[in-house]
């Protein structure tokens, strides 16, 4: 397994370089160094001298290939540098902002997973009944609603009308739970439609398998079939869609963090894109790519742990 992991890590290097190159090209396709400088200078009409000085200070005056190589060197060594907009240390900011993002995303992920599996199991157990039909209708309905509508509706009903939660804001420490519950609920409910539909399909797919028929023929109860056999076998596809997303919990959700005022990484990236802070954008894209790669390696390992037939070589 160790050889496999080392090989996967080595494969990651060209992917990281490729993604960074793509970001670099896309960024420069939409903005010239002059526009980046202009965006980050506070003067109403910056002079040519001010623009040139800014570019020189931030390394945007060099030829593009040279810029890319120097950016790439820093990123590969996990030296993210400083923000173009305010000179702040990017890695320091990522470390501080990762926790609020993670807290919301972690709770939303596990609660969402739990509720989705429970509901999918219920639907599978009562398949073909009215509960299944109405459940399917409801999940499709949930799936059709745009995410931002959930945010506004939950803020309106639970925070404004019923006054259970603060509409937005964040406090660290024990108080944090009070602030993250509403965004967590939004994310859980918003993800429920897709999750339940998907997991129900995985479960029903397994229920049509020969081993289930054999178990039934041997007189094993429906509950035992569902919980002991089907759920275990459906774990592999469920793992595929869930484990890979675990590392991405650190990067947070741009929309939810923006509406709920959570000082996380989603908000950080949103601001960076808005202010054309290329240093932060490229660092965050790189960081995100690293996490995705890590997520896939984690998925492979979890296969090997859950399914004795899988060997990582």
């Amino acid at each position, binding site marked *: 397994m160790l050889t496999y992991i080392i090989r996967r890590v080595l494969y990651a290097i060209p992917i990281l370089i490729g993604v960074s190159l793509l970001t670099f090209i896309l960024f420069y396709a939409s*903005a010239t160094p002059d526009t980046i400088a*202009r965006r980050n200078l506070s003067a109403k009409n910056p002079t040519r001298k*001010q623009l040139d*000085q800014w570019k020189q200070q931030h390394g945007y005056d060099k030829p593009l290939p040279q810029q890319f190589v120097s950016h790439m060197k820093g990123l590969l060594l996990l030296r993210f540098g400083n923000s173009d907009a305010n000179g702040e240390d990017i890695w320091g900011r990522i470390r501080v902002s990762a926790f609020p993002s993670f807290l919301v995303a972690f709770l939303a992920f596990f609660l969402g997973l739990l509720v989705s599996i429970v509901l999918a199991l219920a639907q599978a157990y009562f398949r073909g009944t009215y509960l299944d039909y109405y459940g399917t209708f409801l999940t499709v309905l949930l799936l059709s609603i745009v995410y931002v509508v959930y945010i506004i509706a939950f803020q309106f009903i639970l925070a404004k009308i019923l006054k259970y*939660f603060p509409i*937005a804001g964040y406090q660290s420490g024990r108080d944090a739970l009070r602030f993250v519950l509403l965004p967590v609920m939004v994310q859980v409910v918003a993800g429920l439609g897709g999750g339940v539909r998907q997991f129900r399909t995985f479960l029903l797919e397994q229920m049509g398998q020969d081993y289930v028929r054999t178990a039934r023929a041997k007189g094993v109860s429906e509950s035992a079939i569902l919980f002991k056999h089907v759920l275990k076998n459906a774990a592999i596809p469920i793992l595929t869609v869930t484990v890979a997303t675990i590392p991405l919990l650190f990067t947070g959700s741009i929309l939810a963090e923006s509406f709920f005022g959570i000082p996380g990484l989603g908000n950080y990236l949103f*601001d960076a894109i808005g202010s054309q802070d290329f240093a932060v954008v490229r660092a965050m894209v790189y960081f995100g790519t690293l996490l995705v790669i890590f997520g896939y390696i984690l998925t492979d390992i979890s296969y090997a742990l859950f399914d004795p037939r899988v060997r990582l070589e």
Partner: protein
Amino acid sequence: MEILPDMDNLSVTRSRTRLLRAAPLCLLAVLLLSGCNNDPYPAGESASSTLFVTMGAEPKTFDPSIGYDATVGPVIDAIYPDYFQYHYLKRDPFVLQLGLGATDPERAPYPCTVTVNGKKVRKTGESWTFHIKHGLRFQDDPCFPNGKGREIIAADFVYSFKRMADPAVPCPVVSYFSDKILGMSHYQDVNSALVAKKQPADYSLPIEGLQLDPKDPYTFRILLSDPYPQLRYLMAMHFTSPLAHEAVEKYGKDLAFHPVGCGPFVLAEYVPRGRIVLKANPNYRKDDFYPSDGAPGDREAGLLEDAGKQLPLIKEVRFTIIREGITAWNQFQQGYLDVAGVTQDNFQQAMSNPTEISPDMKRKGIRLSKQPHIEISYFGFNMTDPLWGGYSEKQRKLRQAVSLAVDSQEIIDLESLGLGEPADSVIPPGIFGFDKSYKNPYRQFNIEKAKQLLVEAGYPNGIDPQTGDRLVLNYDNYATSAAGRQFIALIQRQIGKLGIHVESRSTLLPGFQDKLDHGQFQFFYYGWIADYPDPENFVFMFYGPNKRPGPNANAYANPKYDALFEQMRAMPDNAQRLKIIDQMRDIVVEDCPWIYVDYPESFGLVHSWFHNYKPNPVANDMAKYYRIDTAERARKQAEWNRPNYIPAVVVVALLIFGSLPAVNVVKERTNRHVRRNSEGAR
């Protein structure tokens, strides 16, 4: 033996059922345990002497030499006060009063030699002598010995000027000083060479025009190459606030978020994308009092109730960074924000009509506050464009025709919810030179007259007789939103009535600014917000030498105008200056490089517990004057925010009862299975 595994299954099913049943209860329990209230602040904070406001964007910096936008202004000015400050209540005209300064600066002619185009020229400049108050102290900070803020001396003011001129510090207003303070541009050049070699700027280099008094550490002189009365206003901007070299040396670039000033407040907490908390500065000067006089009507409005009280009146200011307008609006309605703006998002709920607050707001005791801006918005023609620019009779008439076809009121209604005054000249209300009775002959919406002018210009019905084609006016803009596209459609329709086709050319803002810099545009829409309340800060936008990157974006140039401008800019506000301003206005109106649109205004909504609120469009150091009735706020917040548990209980009950049939089915299926297996065993 066969029964045993089934008994296991039964227990599994039972535990799942219990789990299913317990889930909503658990959720409710978590809900209740979590405190279950919507107060977004730590417990007890709402009852403290804290002002709760919002910031709509992430601050870029709190560095007084760099920060310029409206977002950071209230924070920087609360930390970094200046030699002068604006009288809190007086308007029309705005009045400067001493802040950190002890006396009004002494102005005297100063003969000097300056280099113009490589030649040395003798000129009569000006010397300003400033005396600062004794006993002023910086805030306590680890950058000082023993962490105690040291006394402020004149050298700290000179240091802030030198820092503005540091090429590594992108000071947005340095051009206001660099061509006027003797030796400042030379200092910039020398330091630019150092910075280019990756060396730090040398602050020990002297600047001829910044002199300290060797005998008096509280006095400094500024020597200018030309008389520059506007320097008074610049001495009220945070760029000229005294800076402690210890702080700059210790924090370097981190000074951006570690401000060390001497103002009424200090930065106590900054959570990026979260909040900014300012606390009262114990070292703040004790001779700053709430004004005892104000503008007409202020006493009746209760704005003089705190006259003579020592400032600041509140202990803390908490800015919550909320990007989404709807979120901030909801928090304002719950009483968790003390003030809110009227925007497109909340207009329907907040207002009955463009001047009256809605009954719901009135019932809550919320009051409306009109917020004038010292600002103008306008359309500009590129004066170097062969068709739309130029100064011939034909070209002037063409622009005048377009000007007559643009209906300001329709634009104000669409863009600003009807808030704003149609503009007839460049100088807005509240500034010396504004003439309420003046009517610009080319800004009175009149399509017939516009068509007539178009005929006189040689383009009847908007057709170019030489080519037989319709005239095309390229409208360069950075409008990418739906509202922006609506605005474009409106302009196309208004000018289209003359038969002229308006072609929209949209880019992002930086791209648009690039176009302006390079003169690659025909027609654009822009605005100008005053830096200081002097007419010079508006009329200078038509001064020829101020073309890009200066504020004269459309490269207007008229030697007659330039001569009048040079005459008026250093004059005091008197009848002669007013006469010149009127002459300048008439020249520009005939040349028609701009289509004046409006002097924008906005509305603020203020809660009943928030006292002494009077917006000032040129000053940002307002927080120290505000007072909060904390008892009233706490009472109303509690009254408005009682949680309603009934719906939650109903939902949980429905979930439990709704799941009962399913639970019964599970039980029945299991029992059937157990029975079958038992029978089989028998």
